[in-house]
């Protein structure tokens, strides 16, 4: 099939209205569903509220799951975004979907993730043993370069906003590399602080005095009865209990179970 196209001039002469869409945007579509949903919405007025029900009604052959998939795809390439709305009292007031003709128009969309950018930075083989990131060899040479601007890689400029767009394959400038280095140092410092606080916590735990929970308030007579029971062999398991517990007597004195047990045993032996 041969493709016959019309120019905007021809459409204008015929008094026909048309929708303008960048060819780059068409190249971003991965599925016909995303393509048709995006074009359908681009044709709508600016104050159009995007509703799933409307999309399902107007397009034959598209189901709810397919529509969700198309919306996800459009979000992933930056052609659609969902923002949360809040009223004057900072209460949640709903969600709003915004559509863009090109990803560069979407202020929330960043084509490069931090993770991929950091992992793509090559590290010098002769880096310092302290683990400090020393940067790219080429950028170290650039520090001594009298004309450092010659090392700055060329950035792709957005045709819509005019701002530089950082692609995944773009090399990083020296300043960008320093920023990454600072970020890495900050993350490492935070991790060290975390480990230090954890170790301090363990140290505090070791130096902490014995818990008062083991102290049981009893009367002196009850304590003596307890010792007699143990010595009489009523309950041998109570030996361990008595020896391992401190007893806080009601008159305010404190008795170590082990010491008192020794004392009673000594008295008994002498008798």
């Amino acid at each position, binding site marked *: *099939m*041969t*493709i016959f*196209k*019309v*120019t*905007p001039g021809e*459409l204008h002469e015929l008094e*026909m*209205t*048309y*929708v*303008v*869409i*960048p*060819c*780059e945007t*068409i*190249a971003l*579509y*991965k*599925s*016909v*569903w995303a*393509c*048709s*949903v995006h*074009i*359908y919405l681009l*044709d709508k007025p600016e104050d159009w509220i995007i509703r799933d029900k409307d999309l399902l009604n*107007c*397009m*034959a*052959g*598209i189901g709810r799951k*397919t529509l969700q998939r198309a919306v996800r795809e459009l979000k992933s390439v930056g052609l659609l975004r969902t923002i949360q709305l809040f009223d004057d009292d900072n209460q949640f007031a709903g969600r709003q979907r915004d559509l863009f003709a*090109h990803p560069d128009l979407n202020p929330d969309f960043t084509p490069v993730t931090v993770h991929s950018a950091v992992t793509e930075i090559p590290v010098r083989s002769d880096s310092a043993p302290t683990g400090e990131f020393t940067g790219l060899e080429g950028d170290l040479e650039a520090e001594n370069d009298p004309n450092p601007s010659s090392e700055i890689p060329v950035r792709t400029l957005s*045709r*819509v906003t005019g701002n530089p767009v950082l692609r995944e394959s773009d090399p990083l400038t020296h300043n960008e590399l320093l920023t990454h280095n600072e970020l890495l140092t900050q993350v490492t410092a935070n991790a060290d602080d975390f480990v230090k606080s954890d170790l301090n916590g363990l140290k505090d735990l070791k130096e902490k005095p014995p818990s008062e929970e083991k102290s049981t308030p009893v009367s002196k007579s009850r304590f003596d009865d307890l010792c007699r029971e143990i010595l009489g062999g009523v309950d041998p398991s109570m030996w361990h209990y008595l020896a391992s517990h401190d007893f806080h007597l009601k008159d305010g004195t404190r008795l170590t179970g082990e010491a008192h047990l020794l004392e009673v045993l000594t008295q008994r032996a002498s008798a």
Partner: protein
Amino acid sequence: MENCYIHKETLNSIHHFAATGIWIWSHSVDGELTEKQVRSRFPEITDIEYMAGVKELRRLGLARGL
């Protein structure tokens, strides 16, 4: 930036998502358009969806021989 100009009335007359997708994409390519090219561009499209889309385009007089 190179743009495509989509005729509004024609766009609104297409009521099948596969037909819309194929027709829109055809604006950004030059030369001949074949079934193989369409399937290569949209690999997830099923046979039923493709046939329904082409049928819709033929019905509207927007495609022949595809």
